[in-house]
């Protein structure tokens, strides 16, 4: 009707009438397209869509392309139900990868805690959790992240508070993680937060800051103890092996001596016996011959010889020569 009215003008009004209708159609199409676009949403593979209709929980949708009533009637929250969330305590990962970087900041407020024997330990740990019940997770607790961190800190201190410093550092690490996990789960269930704790893991457990050096010194002292013992053992082995060798040498030398001694004795005895047998055959001559030969030999060796007449005893009065053959 409207186009007929505008007809009372110049000749160009016919074209503008089609434009008029096209414009209205276009506007309607635009609204339809926007409505359609608002009506669809995607739920990713590890998510669930929680649909509220007029603010009230209506349904949970699985992954895929989903439809909802647009224009604020349906509201969709997407919750990553299959995702492993991780919270770090006492340290922060800046960038994870092949060579993970950690923040240089110290989080001693988080990590220093009292042990049951009233010492202080520096405990770093992680908590991994999953959203177990997306409806509870979304609607039962405000500040879910803060709640998880608060409970984790309280739980860790609760468990560490009942164990000695020595146990926290060494013997009870696994047990602490387990008890702590149960404690956290129990508390979070009480809050109805819809979270399942998957894993609690103790990372570094140290003596705190300025005490750490003295602990390292204990380790060094242990090493020194080992070194001292090793050194002594080395000396022991070296000296004992040498002594054993020396002992063998001493014994062998003695055996050599024995063989030498008896062989020589036998040799001497054989020589004597042979000579003696011949001597018996011509005793006097042999005796004299042996005597003279020996003296000849001796005399020829001696440079200074004085032969003195037996009746001239006064020549050398300081010498008592009677009966003496040789005086050195």
């Amino acid at each position: 009707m409207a186009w007929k009215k505008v007809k009372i003008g110049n000749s160009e009004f016919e074209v503008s009438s089609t434009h008029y209708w096209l414009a209205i159609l276009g506007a309607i199409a635009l609204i339809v397209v926007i409505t359609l676009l608002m009506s669809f949403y995607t739920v990713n593979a590890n998510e669930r869509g929680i649909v509220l209709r007029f603010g009230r929980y209506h349904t949970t949708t699985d992954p895929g392309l989903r439809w909802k009533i647009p224009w604020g009637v349906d509201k969709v929250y997407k919750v990553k139900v299959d995702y492993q969330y991780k919270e770090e305590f006492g340290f922060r990962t800046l960038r994870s990868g092949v060579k993970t970087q950690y923040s240089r900041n110290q989080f001693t407020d988080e990590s220093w805690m009292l042990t049951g024997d009233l010492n202080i330990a520096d405990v770093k740990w992680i908590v991994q959790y999953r959203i177990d019940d997306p409806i509870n997770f979304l609607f039962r607790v405000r500040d879910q992240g803060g709640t998880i961190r608060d409970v984790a800190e309280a739980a860790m201190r609760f468990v560490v508070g009942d164990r000695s410093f020595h146990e926290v550092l060494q013997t009870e690490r696994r047990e602490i993680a387990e008890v702590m996990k149960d404690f956290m789960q129990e508390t979070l269930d009480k809050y109805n937060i819809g979270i399942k704790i998957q894993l609690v893991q103790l990372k570094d457990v140290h003596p705190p800051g300025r005490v750490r050096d003295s602990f390292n010194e204990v380790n060094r002292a242990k090493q020194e103890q080992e070194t001292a013992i090793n050194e002594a053992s080395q000396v022991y082995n070296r000296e004992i092996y040498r002594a054993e060798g020396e002992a063998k040498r001493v014994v062998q030398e003695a055996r050599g001596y024995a063989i030498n001694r008896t062989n020589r004795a036998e040799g001497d005895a054989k020589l004597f016996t042979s000579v003696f047998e011949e001597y018996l055959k011509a005793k006097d001559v042999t005796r004299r011959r042996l005597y003279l030969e020996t003296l000849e030999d001796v005399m020829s060796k001696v440079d200074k010889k004085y032969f003195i007449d037996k009746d001239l005893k006064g020549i050398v009065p300081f010498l008592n020569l009677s009966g003496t053959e040789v005086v050195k």
Partner: protein
Amino acid sequence: MKTRIIIIAILVIVVIAFIADGIYILDETEQSIITQFGDPVGEPVIKAGMHFKIPFIQKVFVFDKRLLEWDGAPQEIPTKDNKFIHIDTFARWRISNALTFYKSLKNEMTAHSRLDDLLDGVVRDEIANHRLPEIIRSSDRQMSILEVEAVGVDSSRIDDLSIKGARKKISESIVKHVQDKLKELDLGIEVIDMKFKRIDYNPEVQEKVFDRMVSGQKRIAEKYRAIGQGKKQDILGKQDQRKKEILSKAYLEAQTIRGKADAKAIKIYADAYNKNYESRDFYNFMRTLNAYKFAMDTTTVLLLTTDNDFLKYLKSPK
């Protein structure tokens, strides 16, 4: 005609406004109360969804339905055994009755300040009524403590660690106290849980504990070193003993062998030389002659008289 269109348009707008103000939507996380000319009317609306009210006359106040956070400011409290500790607590609470909450507290900020007063007071009372080990520990579980690490807060004395821990009981008792008081005060809020987030020594005590730990460790280190040195000396001593044992045993064996050999040699000589008078005499003679050969050399001075047997022909051929 133009005025009619305008009137109709105004009417439509008014109707839409009435409908829009008469409807309100509550989220799953919300609850509300309705007031009429400033006074609350009816019960609180808790259920999520679309709700109606009288437009313009009634007003909606929306509150949170969820568990809400409360984080206490860390405070320094002396324990029963007079140790100053820093205590940091947290609690979780909720608006249990929106109507009384609206009447008594109006908003979360005032609620927080009321909770501050209440919780801080009760925490202080409970802490002051317990000794430090009771607050830290939660059972009477037997701990394995290295002797040198047993720590007294003031380094002279070692605290009695055998008393039963009550950490859980203390926080439960705090919650109970606060719950009772809240019921009494009827503020429309309830505390679900309270826990100690952190319990630390105050800085001066902490330094003392560190000193104590350092000196304890130094003692352990010294012990290890001393043990090492002791063992070293022990091994060296054993080494010396063993060495002497080995060598002396060898000496014993060697001397025994030599002795036997000497004995055997003596027997051999005796057998050869000691057959009869003749042999003894001959041996004596031979051995003496042999001795002359070795007894004299070029430096020897010989003085002989002519009655010597060797020289007897020097004076006469007879």
